[in-house]
């Protein structure tokens, strides 16, 4: 049985076509950040091969509205090369772990001119065929409130209060009616004690639209 499974897995892995052995790169889709804060742009990849020693990561940046990209980071041969001439000089730091397939970078002290698209490209020789993945960075002065959050909150609170008031009103009526009933029963007969028999006799008060006193 075990030998059969081993043979089958070897055969299947051999049959796996060349295209599916492409490297798959993951970054976020969009990142929001406040002016002046730091942000970590993550990049990782999936590859059928073991992580080789020649693994490379490279990040390029394309500002919003521009068609040209500029290379800002490159990791190869175990050494990380950060931008020392371009828009991110002294603001870029490598915080990834190539051994664990993590090529994340840290951008410090964000400015409005940093709005744009960051593309990560990773290569894991001999697995080099793959599509680079892009993450869009949006820098805000203050984090905007999403449409409808406050609207929903106000409506929810007011309707919740309304439901609460109705529930409390009916609860009060129910408790008062029950107390009145139990008092009248205890007056009439001492044989009838509080028990399941009494619960069967009692019926809930009818719900009608009585005006509030």
């Amino acid at each position: 049985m075990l030998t059969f499974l081993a043979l089958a897995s070897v055969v299947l892995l051999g049959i796996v076509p060349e295209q599916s052995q492409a490297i798959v790169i993951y970054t976020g889709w969009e990142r929001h950040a406040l002016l002046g804060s730091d942000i970590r742009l993550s990049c990782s990849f999936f590859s059928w091969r073991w992580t080789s020693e020649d693994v490379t990561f490279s990040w390029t940046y394309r500002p919003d509205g521009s068609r040209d990209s500029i290379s800002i980071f490159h990791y190869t041969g175990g050494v990380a090369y950060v931008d020392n001439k371009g828009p991110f000089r002294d603001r870029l730091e490598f915080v990834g772990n190539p051994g664990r397939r993590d090529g994340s970078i840290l951008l410090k002290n964000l400015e409005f001119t940093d709005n744009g698209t960051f593309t990560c490209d990773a290569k894991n020789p001999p697995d080099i065929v793959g599509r680079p993945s892009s993450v869009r960075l949006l820098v805000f002065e203050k984090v905007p409130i999403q449409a409808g959050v406050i609207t929903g909150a106000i409506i929810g609170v007011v309707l919740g209060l309304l439901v609460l008031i109705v529930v409390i009103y009916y609860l009060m009526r129910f408790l008062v009616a029950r107390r009145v009933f139990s008092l009248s029963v205890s007056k009439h007969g001492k044989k009838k004690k509080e028990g399941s028999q009494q619960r069967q006799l009692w019926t809930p008060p009818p719900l009608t639209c009585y005006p509030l006193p």
Partner: protein
Amino acid sequence: MLLLLLGIILLHLAALVLLFVSTIISVWSTSETGTSDLWTNCSIVNGGYHCNPASTGEWIQAVQALMILSIIFSCLSLFLFFCQLFTLQKGGRFFLTGTFQILASLFVMSGAIIYTVTSQYWVLETYTFGYSYILAWVAFPLALISGLIYVILRKRE
């Protein structure tokens, strides 16, 4: 008696319809080239009519919430009126109906006041108040009068 009932219901429905129109149609501010608030900003760019979602500030969301609440309370008040019409004792007053309708009018009033005071922060100088805004202000006294009539009214057979 029937005429009185019909008149009251018509007044309530008029206020309700005004509230619906004022909330749904996004013409609280208007100018020659476009309209804005409560839900979308539409403008006539040289290409054609182009609409964007309205700005997501705190105050405009508060106005949206208050208008929606006023519609909800006015509808509830209408439903309660019919409910109380058949279950109230003779000589009883429609307090619950009147309360809800007065609350609805207060919500419209607060929404219109908030919009009046804070719209300057996001609406351009060339814009003036549109007809949805005016309808909201008209709906307020109608709803208030309707609510007061309910509170004063006594049920007769």
